[in-house]
């Protein structure tokens, strides 16, 4: 793949582009980064949803949807996530390549303009966003919070993070609480918008066949009038644990969820983070991992058991779905596998198959425009921005010794169990 071309359009405004011809579509995405904060998460999140709901030119959701559909089902999406201790507002547009339109029009040009429209020309008047729109977006956000509660796998994972990182910004919800959202006024959103334009860090990424010049030109122009003082961004990494926490919650579920959070004492941009990523893969990241093979297949203790590494925070999360009677046995089996890793009991097969699976997923991920965009934009805070080929090379070079060393740095932080209520069946 062609490597990334980067340029700074304004202070704290980066524009990255990758030219790729194999797709039928193009994509332009911006990550807007701010510090995670109890005071501003809710208003920033709602700002993001308000920006993609409509704009001055397309003043309601339906008009905007119709515009996108006339552009052959083009997409405009907004989402909110956490990236280390930062809140990340993501807005993206994507559509078919100009050469496939039925009427010969340029979709990519119109979409770049549309992205700038929604960021710089939202539907505001008298220092306020539209109150009816805000009420609707609040409702949609509550619904999203409810859906995440309905999905017990997501719920359990969020509970773990909340407990484990109670003293870190990372522990708070990416869009605040229902109460915080409820309290927001149309003027609060305006204030958030003004703050974002002047102070947030903007990272644009363009992927497509046609030239990115047009897009970067439109963006650069839009920032000309704005006096920018980008905010400082950082992420705290906790290196040691004083006393592990143990929390059990009861709910009416048939299958229990066992969540284990560990500190890895190593995070991006530290060089060894790559070894931790691979360690997590050997432990529970693939279909040949120790967890899958031993805890699930051999001992039949759970329906799923996997681990993932939150690389900016230095946190390893182990997730498992188990029967109530098997919770203790599964816990024991999971810690036994970690112990084996620490002692260096890793077979060549385990190591090699984990490397293959990880490299496979790296290459596979860049076969979509969204994947290419994510691949680059997610490396924003890493030590270096690698192409898929460079990343594969680094994974291949990791040794068993490095993995064992990474395993020996693991310390247990929190165990969270979502348990079925004891009812007679």
């Amino acid at each position: 793949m062609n490597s990334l071309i980067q340029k700074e359009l304004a202070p704290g405004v980066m524009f990255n582009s990758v030219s790729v011809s194999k797709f039928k579509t193009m994509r332009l995405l911006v990550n807007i980064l701010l510090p995670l904060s109890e005071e501003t998460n809710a208003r920033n999140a709602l700002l993001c949803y308000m920006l993609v709901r409509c704009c001055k030119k397309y003043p309601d959701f339906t008009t905007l949807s119709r515009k996108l559909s006339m552009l052959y089902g083009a997409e405009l999406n907004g989402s909110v996530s956490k990236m280390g201790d930062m809140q990340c507002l993501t807005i993206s547009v994507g559509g078919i390549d100009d050469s496939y339109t039925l009427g010969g029009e340029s979709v990519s040009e119109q979409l770049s303009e549309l992205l700038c429209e929604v960021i710089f020309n939202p539907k505001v008047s008298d220092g306020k966003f539209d109150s009816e729109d805000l009420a609707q977006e609040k409702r949609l956000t509550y619904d999203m919070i409810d859906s995440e509660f309905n999905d017990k796998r997501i719920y359990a994972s969020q509970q773990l993070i909340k407990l484990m990182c109670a003293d870190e910004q990372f522990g708070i919800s990416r869009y605040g609480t229902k109460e915080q959202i409820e309290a927001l006024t149309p003027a609060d959103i305006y204030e958030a918008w003004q703050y974002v334009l002047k102070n947030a860090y903007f990272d644009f990424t363009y992927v497509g066949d046609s030239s990115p010049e047009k897009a970067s030109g439109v963006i650069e122009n839009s920032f000309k009038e704005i006096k920018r003082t980008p905010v400082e961004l950082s992420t705290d990494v906790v290196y040691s644990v004083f006393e592990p926490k143990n929390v059990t919650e009861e709910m009416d579920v048939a299958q229990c969820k066992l969540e284990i959070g560990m500190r890895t004492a190593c995070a991006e941009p530290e060089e060894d983070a790559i070894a931790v990523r691979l360690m997590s893969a050997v432990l529970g990241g693939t279909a040949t991992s120790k967890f899958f093979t031993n805890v699930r297949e051999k001992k039949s203790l759970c329906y799923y058991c996997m681990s993932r590494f939150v690389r900016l925070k230095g946190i390893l999360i182990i997730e498992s779905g188990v029967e109530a009677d098997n919770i203790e046995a599964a816990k024991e089996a999971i810690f036994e596998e970690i112990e084996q890793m620490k002692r260096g009991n890793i077979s060549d097969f385990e190591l090699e198959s984990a490397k293959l699976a990880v490299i496979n997923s790296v290459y596979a991920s860049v076969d979509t425009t969204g994947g290419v965009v994510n691949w680059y934009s997610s490396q924003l805070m890493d030590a270096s921005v690698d192409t898929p080929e460079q990343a594969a090379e680094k994974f291949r070079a990791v040794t068993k010794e490095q993995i064992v060393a990474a395993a020996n740095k693991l310390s247990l932080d929190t165990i969270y169990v979502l348990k079925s209520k004891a009812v007679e069946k």
Partner: protein
Amino acid sequence: MNNITEVVSAKFKDKYYKIDHESGLTIYVYPKPGYNSKYAIFGTHYGSVNNAFSLDGGEVKRVPDGIAHYLEHKMFECEDGDAFLKYAKTGANANAYTSFDKTCYLFNCTDKFDESLEILLDFVQRPYFTDETVAKEQGIIGQEIRMYDDSPEWCVMFNLLKNMFRSHPVQIDIAGTVESIAEITPELLYSCYNTFYNLNNMVLCVAGDLTPEDVLKTADKMLKPSENHTIENYFDGEPYEVCSHYVEQEFPVSMPLFNFGFKVKTHPVTRKEAAEVDILLGVLSASYSDLYKLLDDAKLINQSFDSEYFNGPGYNVVLFSGESRSPKEAAEKITDYIRELQKTGISREMFEIARRDAYGDALSSLNSVDNIANAMVDCHFNNADIFGTIEDIANATLEDVNERLCSLLDLDNTTLSVVLPAKE
């Protein structure tokens, strides 16, 4: 001799090859230059609904519910070890699934494609079932069934089907029940295998940076010639009318979920019809539609609102689904809206929006090797063609879509299934 046909689309700047392999298998190869991922899917036209069948006019066999899915799980266990472990050596990402009307085995890889394809073709053609291995699976599948029982989305759909259909097996949980899978024996598994895993009843679709020769190299070596047999599937006489118009269940969810289905007169769906219904469902449920706006303004839906045309042998259902504070009101509004639209017809402007939207969606699906290969399996089993499907959307007319709107949706033949938050 293998017969190879090249199908080119100048418009979509892509092509694929259809190979009638001498073994009896149909193979499709869709080259995607520049892609790292390669995707192969090997499927049989056999799913959870095929629970009564005969071979070459012989006696009708009835098999336990959930056996197709059970068989899929057991196929991974080979005499010489677990197929997943074999894939681990090639780094491929392997999976399988059983749906109502097909069972598919697939892998996605970026490296060592030949080896992975060899594994796929080998284990799916080499069943190995013993009393011991069959018994061992009961616990794992039992767990899987329990996990589905915990899923409100899964339950709201099966409650709909159970109340819509009187006897058709589409209402039966794909994985069966803990009781039904207890009846499964190696003999029954072999009987299903020998009936449906005949290469003439199967298809292999491959997409990626590959040529037909790359695939044939392995296929020629691995495929065992199959004799063509006549398979007859039996579905008990299913009445046109739904069994019941409403069903509800409580769950620990915070917002009600609903599935609102229109039972449609059974018929095989043509490519043209599928394209027209695609556009029609855009008009009825996409975020740009008048109905979406109406429901959204009334605070009756959220972004999860969706629709689907869901069909197979003996079942055709148009389905609306989503989360709603008041599913009954939402269903009523949907019904009223459709009744009115059936009188006035869809406007030309709305049709154009929906047509372009559906076209862009279909074209974008050619970006993904997974989508392409999966779509080609469906196309093969439904006698369609991947480029033709997109062309049909581009060429659809307002008149034909209006005609579908009236002929497909019978407002008196609906079922509403609701999952309500459990009362404390």
